[in-house]
């Protein structure tokens, strides 16, 4: 089964440190999403890319968060400096704009659980 791979699985870091989360989307998927799961907001969209170009990052605090796709096999989400309120599970998902595939939604990775102390 094709899967979206996220690393690290868990990350504990001190406030003020830089955190980088990585995602390998499914080969052939041209759309990559970063979501954050919180109790209050559920699955909150942070940013997404199509064909490696950023399409929407309005959900992301721009002063500390950045998202990139250096190539088709890697997406990164970086937080610098990290704060305790960033503690959450961060999910990467990939899909294809063809509605037949998007109709099945996205394929999510297992997430990165970030704890900022």
């Amino acid at each position, binding site marked *: 089964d094709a899967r979206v791979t996220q690393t690290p699985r868990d990350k504990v870091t001190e406030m003020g440190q830089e955190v980088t989360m990585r995602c390998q989307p499914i080969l052939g998927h041209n759309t990559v999403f970063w979501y954050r799961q919180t109790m209050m907001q559920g699955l909150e969209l942070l940013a997404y890319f199509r064909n490696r170009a950023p399409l929407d990052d309005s959900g992301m605090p721009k002063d500390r968060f950045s998202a990139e796709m250096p190539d088709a096999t890697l997406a990164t989400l970086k937080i610098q400096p990290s704060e305790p309120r960033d503690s959450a599970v961060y999910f990467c998902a990939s899909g294809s704009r063809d509605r037949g595939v998007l109709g099945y939604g*996205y394929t999510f990775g297992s997430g990165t659980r970030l704890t900022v102390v």
Partner: protein
Amino acid sequence: DQQVKQNSPSLSVQEGRISILNCDYTNSMFDYFLWYKKYPAEGPTFLISISSIKDKNEDGRFTVFLNKSAKHLSLHIVPSQPGDSAVYFCAASAKTGNQFYFGTGTSLTVIP
């Protein structure tokens, strides 16, 4: 502002009975809806979908109902099994849109 709402954070059901999970949306442009299931320490996985041209879609024990006039959809699980215990997310998309909007999830517990 949440465009997709799941107002019940949790639900408990006896094994063998019906589970009904509800979802409301505000954007009348939404025309495609999904349900995702999420186990602890895993990512959400696709469960079932429905297009706005239908009012019902069935897949085994899972049925999704769509009431466009009320902007409401529901997921029925019959019969409920302990393995169905998970968080269920409702998601919606517009034909012209590029993303799905997710609700906050409902945690279902099926009691053996």
